[in-house]
Structure formats: C-alpha cells, structure tokens
C-alpha cells in the first residue's frame, strides 16, 4: 500500500510503513537539512546522530530515520546556522 506525504510543498509517494527518511531517499532526495552552511542528509540511520531532523506537521526536530511516515504528513526542511 502506498502513502503520500508532502515535502516542502511537493507531493512524494512512499510505501506504508517506511520511515520519513526512507520515503525521501526512495524519491531520490539525499539531503533535507542545512547545517553550518552545508547540506546534510541521513547519517546514522538509527536515531543516534540527529543529523536527519525535519519539521513534521509543525513540530520541529523530528528524526526522519525513526518516525514512520503517515498519509498526509507535512514535512519541511530545517536550517541550522
């Protein structure tokens, strides 16, 4: 079964049960965050490093590698100076 989430306003399709990070990667997105002026993507994949955090439905700092994507989730990039 497939689900749809929005990432910075764009609709992306994923498989029901994938993490938000998994949906982004499966859609060819390798980076979804800016830190210290450079692009960052997924790093540890198991919830340790916090490098993959995104804003989900208005809540900041959600680890994309740990949160299961739900139908209609609104996901936004985060920028950290």
């Amino acid at each position, binding site marked *: 079964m497939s689900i749809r989430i929005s990432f910075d306003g764009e609709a992306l399709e994923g498989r029901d049960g994938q993490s938000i990070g998994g949906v982004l990667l499966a859609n060819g997105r390798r980076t979804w965050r800016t830190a210290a002026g450079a692009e960052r993507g997924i790093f540890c994949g198991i919830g340790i490093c916090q490098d993959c955090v995104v804003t989900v439905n208005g809540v900041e700092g*959600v680890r994309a590698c740990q*949160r299961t994507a739900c139908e209609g989730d609104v996901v936004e990039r985060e920028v950290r100076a």
Partner: protein
Amino acid sequence: MTRVVVIGAGPAGLAAAASASQAGADVVVLDEGERVGGQFWRHHPAFTDPRLQHQLTRFSALQEALEDVRVVTSASVWRVEPGTPLRVHALVGPVDAARRRGETLEADAVVLAPGAHDRVLPVPGWTLPGVTSAGAVQALAKRDGVALGTRTVVAGAGPFLLPVAQSVALLGGEVVEVVEAASAGTIMRGWGRRPWQMIAAAGKAGELGSYLATLARHRTPYRLGSAVTRIHGGSSVEAVTVQHIDRDWRPIPGTERIVECDSVALGHGFTPRLEAAIQFGCEITGARNGGDRFVRVDSQQLTSIPGVHAAGEITGIGGADAALAEGEIAGLAAAGVPAADLRYRAPLTARRRMRAFTERLATHSIRPGWTAWLDDDTIVCRCEAATRGAIAEYADASSRGMRLATRAGLGPCQGRTCGRSVEDIIGAASGFDRRPVLSSVRIGELAAHRIPPTTGEESKQ
C-alpha cells in the same frame, strides 16, 4: 512475584524477557523502536528482502515466549534510579512527538540491554550527503527497503563491513570496494593461522562464507590495511581517497588512490550505549585508562549495583549470538533463579563459545594513528560543526572548558557521535558518556512530567 523491567528489545533484551517470564517473574520490556527486535531484527514484515533476515526462527520463538510479558514500544527511557525499588522513567509515543505519555515503572530487578551504535571515525568530507554509518545501510535496507546510492564504498574495520556490503549488493547497488583497516598480517595474527576453525566453532562459518561468496560473485575488491582518508564532492559524494595505512592506522604518503562513488558507508566498530548503566552507578571497566568502556558484570550478568543486570553489547561487543546467551542468563538471574539451576547450562555454554570469537574482534580495534588523516578544518562534532583544529587547541583545558569553548558534544546528539573521537584528539577522557538525560526528550515534556514521590526508606523518616 519478582518485578523485572527490561530496557531494550533486541536479542539480549528479548532473551532476558523470555527467560525471566518463563521463570515466573512479572516482566515489562521497554524499547524506543516501534517494533521489537532491535537493530538485528529490524526487518519490516512487508518489505525486507528475506535474505537480510537472520535467525528468524529464534526471533519467532522469542516473540511467542513474550505472551505474558507487557511490551511497551515507542518508549524512550530518559531516567533511571537505583534503590529499593529500582525505578525507570519513560516517555511513550511517536518518535520526537510533542506531549508523549510519561510512565514510571518500579522493579525488583532491571536488565539493561540497550545495545550499541556504530563508532564512525571522522574523515575530511564525512558530512557530505551520501556518507552514512555502516549501520545506516543495514537499517535502511531492513527497515525501509531502500539503498542509498548506486556505487558504494564500504570502509572501516571489522567483520560487520561484510553483511553491509552484502545488503548493498542485494538491493541492486554496486559495492565498488570494501576497505578494511586491519592488515592481512594483523588479521592472520589476530584470528590465527586457521581462522576458519575459530569461525566454525562459533557457528559463523556459513554466514561468513555467504558474505565472501557475495563479494566474489560481484568481483568486489576487499582491500586490507587501507582506509578512506578523504571524501570528495560538491553537494554530495563524488569520490574517495583510499590509502594504505600503517599498523597504527597512520596514512602512508604516496599510496593514495581516487575511487569514484556516490555513497560511502563507514563503520569502525561499535560504541556501547552506557548511559543508563552510568546513571544507575554501575561500575564501568576501562573508564580510567582510556580503553574501551563496558559495564562490568559477574557470571550471572549482575552489575555492581544490586538488582541491576546487563546483557549484550554494553558488556562487550560480541554480536547477536553472544547477546542472546547473555540475555537468557540475565533474565534468569533477574527472576531470582539460583546460580546452580540447570537452566543456566545451555546459555553459559553458548556464552563461553562466543567469548572466544568476540575476543578475536579486537584484531580490528581502532589504532591511535587515525587522527593523522584529519585536517585542522575537518568537522569532528557534526552537530555543532566543531573542527579538529578548534578541539586540539583546547586539548590542555578542562573537559568542561574545552566543550564550552568549542561546543564539541553539546549539540542534539550529546556527543554520542563524536565523543570518543574528541577523546582520541585531546588524548584524555572527557566525560561525554555521562548524560543527565538518557534519550531525546523535549524540555516541555520534562517540565510536564510529574515524578511520583519516592516510596522507599527516605520518605518514612
């Protein structure tokens, strides 16, 4: 009835919960994941390639043995307290959501089985998108059914690199090279002249054979005595420098090769998750001499704190089989089964057999010369972008002074990724393992959480 709380639902935790429950204890298992299984059984029922799932029969048997156990998933343990009873505080709800439900458990015995995570040594360029830990490749393959890139270099140290390379290949990616830091000579000396005998004794021959066959089938080179010493790219990974290293892992000038790739998986061993053990006050071995740190346990997996047992990777890195054996022993002991009981025999034998294997893993231990491949401007602390140069400048300051000046280890991961590397750079222990809050918790959740008053001796006075 003995109340047992198990923290962690990987192989060690599940084995502990099952054996404690079968021995008649009242058992609760807490795990921060959405499903039980830990990193080893991280598979998704619908879309994990079955060839990536090991020992599924054992997993199913353990799950069936949890019939009388209360299993709480999506539970972040953020504080533990020693005493009578022992207490465990958790927040339960979707990962990093606001307003999760707080829960405090009281127990006569606790089994700590939180596992470990990859230790990844920094390398110039390692913050580029496309660079991940080796464990991330496994997690994405098992949990999400996705591969990161099309041309991957797998680099670091230890046998874990092999299943990672196999996962990439099974998902249709190309493994350009596997780069292992230990040299052929070191591997011969460490594993013995006939390493297959040791591996067969640990029941790992078939597993190793399948990994090596995968490499051979794809004609993937397995480079020994080498390291990825630089990662190149603009907006993401484009290539790596692979270089020979000496016995201390110092790069040997003039041996550089450029290897084109679009992703890099790095893993230089594992770091035990010691936070809860430290907060309970358990004795940690190796903490003073700068060596690898693990929770000290006796033959019953009991720590130095009464009622607190530890099993799996936090007592020494040994893989799933060792964790299963230790967990079973810890669960029986936590339930109050006396040491002479026959139920200990099988897991004690398994633990002994695995120990010979795990001792050999030291062959791949990190050597101090690795810091020579860092530049002054290489980011070491990814969260705060603290560089090697800035950290080295404060090498003689107090640990607190160094952290406040550079911000190393003060970001959201709280030094979990960089802590040991910072210590290698400054040449001293820095106390990164001691974290007042054990897991990611929103400050509002902490503020809202009401801890029930202590019911022990103190409150009666």
